[in-house]
């Protein structure tokens, strides 16, 4: 469903992504790992359209995304959460969800009810019910993360990219998030790319793991193999 061909991105002299080729199958759960600055976030920025001026091709369901700006890609069904949560601070949790529902989703894709109901559903799903009418400023770390996911879900994506959705969470909280993601994938058949440092989570979650280092793919296989891969070890631990 997602096809990346010869993707290359330079910042000034610095090569952030170097000729990336990657395919993701519908319904797949893909893990994306790599040390800091290995280009993970840059990669998804190129996919989601936050970065436009890259070389190479990005296809989504056969059509080329290169010419499309971010919000158009979102409407096609690509959704991402941010590593550092970026809530709309002047709004309540619910209003935060209404934005994507109002702008990204054509009403036909909504079930029977209004977008209001839709928002409430998502909030319930993520157990944010009691916060619904609170301003986002007051939220805790985990609630922030959940809101971030909630908004990503609200655009009714086919592909959801979660960027370190679990950083800085307790292990029980990590499990919460994992549960949500898995149910998304299994119930709503949403393809998921998970960027994560917490190995336990990413290895447990993913059917396939891709490891980036210095803008290159150094491993692309089942979790069990990737863990054994010496190149990956080297990238993480150094020599």
């Amino acid at each position, binding site marked *: 469903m997602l096809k990346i061909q010869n993707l290359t991105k330079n910042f000034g002299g610095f090569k952030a992504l170097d000729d990336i080729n990657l395919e993701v199958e519908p319904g797949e759960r893909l893990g994306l790992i790599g040390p800091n600055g290995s280009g993970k976030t840059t990669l998804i920025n190129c996919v*989601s*359209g*936050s970065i436009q001026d890259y070389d190479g091709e990005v296809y989504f369901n056969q059509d080329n995304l290169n010419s499309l*700006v*971010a*919000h158009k890609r*979102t*409407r096609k069904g690509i*959704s*991402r959460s*941010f590593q550092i949560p*970026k*809530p*709309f*601070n*002047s*709004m309540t949790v619910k*209003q935060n969800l*209404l*934005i*994507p529902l*109002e*702008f*990204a*989703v054509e009403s036909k894709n909504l079930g029977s009810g209004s977008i209001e109901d839709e928002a409430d559903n998502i909030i319930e799903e993520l157990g944010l019910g009691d916060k619904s009418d609170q301003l986002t400023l007051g939220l805790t770390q985990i609630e922030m993360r959940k809101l971030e996911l909630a*908004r990503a879900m*609200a*655009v009714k994506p086919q592909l959801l990219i979660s960027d370190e959705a679990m950083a800085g969470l307790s292990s029980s909280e990590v499990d919460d998030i994992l549960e949500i993601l898995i149910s998304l994938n299994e119930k709503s058949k949403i393809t998921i790319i998970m960027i994560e440092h917490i190995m336990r989570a990413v290895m447990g979650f993913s059917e396939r793991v891709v490891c980036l280092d210095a803008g290159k793919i150094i491993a692309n296989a089942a979790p069990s193999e990737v863990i054994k891969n010496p190149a990956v070890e080297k990238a993480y631990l150094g020599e």
Partner: protein
Amino acid sequence: MRNNRFYLLIGVLFVLSYLATAFVDNQYYFFAGFAILQLMVMALAWNILGGYAGYVNFGSAAFFGLGAYSAIFVLQLFDATLFTQIIVAGCFSGLVGFGTGYLTLRLRGVYFAIATLALLVVSETLIVNWDYVGGAAGAYVLPKRNPEILGVLVVGKSGALFGNYKELLFFLMCTIALITIVICRFIENSKFGRGLAALRDNEEAAESMGVPTLKLKLIATSLSASIMGITGGTFPYYMTFIDPISAFNLDISVNALAMPLIGGTGSWLGPVLGALVLGTLQQVVTVTISSSINLLVVGLFLVAFVIFAPGGFLGLIQKYWKRGG
């Protein structure tokens, strides 16, 4: 305020503003009123981009001045009526706003702010060097004797809609202000407004939630600019003599920016309050104490408010309400 109540109020104000011109003969109130209303409209217009979308515009004076001078231009060209002048002024400033926005709104806010500052200098220089509209020497606009629309005498000593031009201008400015208020309120409760709010809070997130940020920003800029232009369009008639220095005066930018910030940027009520308070204060303070202090007051007010009262006047009032319970 519920809808019908709001529109009723607007309607009443509209009628009142006309009755005022009929029954009040103390001309000063029309001058003072015009001045304050002018500030109000500029503040509201600035707030559409600055308050709702969070993009700071230093160039309000540019859009205002270009409005004023497109009015002069059409007057020179085919001796246009006041109303044509205002329409043209609005359209032209709107276009310039769109152009500037199109060139710079892809960038971070500060760049847009600087660009508008540059626009101010450029447009002033162009006018200064363009003698057809008077150039640096300035241009006179003498009000026409007994203008008519569809056979109805608009301004005249007797049997006319208005006793004199000041009354007409006052009524006009009231109408513009009311319309602008309606527009602003409409924006706040519209999808457009919510989109602006989202991109103000976090542009990248908004974009990735499907908000067409550039488009919304462009609409906001053009709208705000053209309202400023319309305000400028009435300026030549009010002054009867304008030169680039007064039409592109930096103070115009400062006030347009200060008043929403003092009033509160969240809703249309903020700029309105800000303009009423600051405008009245300026009128009064100029009278009661030395005016260099008057300027100081404006400066201190601005600083004090942005430091201590983030929500502006509106914020304060709401707080009091909450406390009062």
